[in-house]
């Protein structure tokens, strides 16, 4: 190999730089875990917590497509028989009344930036 002395250190520096986020994450803590505020007036969400945690965005998309495009029902029922509105604005935020204390808590931690509230009007923060 020509220029062994340049290529091998170069490769090492390159690999080091590319994997930097991994090293950085191992060496430091990512701060306290998020703690979204739970509603006091309800015990159960529309789906189990694990599903909601991983797939609430999928669910919202399905509701939206079903209601807007295929004339689906706007009413849903939880496992224990509570009725709810299949809607972000009129359903989810009915129990999870604060965007700041619920949505933003995890979204900020995970550095995701969903555009829900670019159009939907978020509930007024009470305090």
């Amino acid at each position: 190999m020509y220029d062994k002395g340049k290529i091998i250190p170069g490769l090492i520096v390159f690999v080091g730089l590319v994997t930097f986020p991994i090293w950085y994450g191992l060496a430091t803590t990512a701060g306290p875990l998020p703690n979204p505020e739970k509603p006091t007036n309800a015990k159960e969400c529309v789906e189990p917590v694990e599903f909601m945690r991983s797939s609430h965005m999928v669910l919202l998309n399905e509701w939206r497509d079903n209601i807007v495009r295929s004339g689906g029902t706007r009413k849903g029922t939880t496992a224990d028989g509570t009725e709810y509105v299949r809607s972000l604005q009129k359903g989810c935020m009915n129990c999870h009344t604060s965007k700041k204390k619920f949505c933003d808590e995890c979204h900020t931690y995970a550095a995701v930036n969903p555009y829900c509230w670019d159009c939907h009007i978020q509930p007024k923060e009470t305090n």
Partner: protein
Amino acid sequence: MDNSRRKFLKIAGLSAIAGIGAPTAFNGLLKGEAFASSAPSGGGGHGSEKAPTGKRYGFAIDIKKFASDKDLAQRCVNACHSTHNVPDFGNNKDGSKNRKDEIKWIWAEKFEHTFPDHSHYKKNEQLQETPILTLCNHCDNPPCVRACPTQATFKNSDGLVLMDFHRCIGCRFCMAACPYGARSFNWRSPRELDASGNYKYIKNPNPDFPTRMRGVVEKCNMCAERLAEGKLPACVEAAASSEAIVFGDLNDSHSPVSQVLKEKFTIQRKPALGTKPSIFYII
């Protein structure tokens, strides 16, 4: 006769597939038309239609009621625009040349503009002065739905032509396709804030309905969200005391709108284009 013409076009289209891509567009277009319309393509004169399938909501707008109550039209407009958070950029007032950013779902128009292909020679004076409510026609055969490359605008099972704001890419093909000028585009963000943190262009926003974001097309949705809750469209409700707008399913011969249409003489906008509007005007 109409059927055989349709068949011929389909065969002609199919045989052209063997050729190149362009003619297949023609065939797809025919398929799309059949897909979009609740009734098969009508034969005979303009506006004659065949046996319907499914629902098809429509209005009969009684122009005389708007002549006797000149503010009624504006009340209907306000009811709609405040329900749906339609922004007012302030550059769409009458007489203002700069209507650049204007967004409107329903508005009062002069007869000669709503019905430009009607003769205006020696027309009844009262008609010329009456504000005519102008809105999306929720066509049974909508050119905008045919044009949309993403199905962001589509016809739902109630015969309403709706917008999916999440899917619209803002190409504005539907605006060029609409022969009624019913569509508006968000040239800028409707949610700009003023100094005190309120929306500058949406006074009293309705928290139950979203606003839009810049870069998408919007238009009248015949209050699909209110119909789902068993309510009447906002403009119909605003005009309820004088029953100036009759609402109902055009495909149901017992619905209020069908009853009125049986009795009164009505006109539609540009029937010669074959779009089959669901909005009728009682003259």
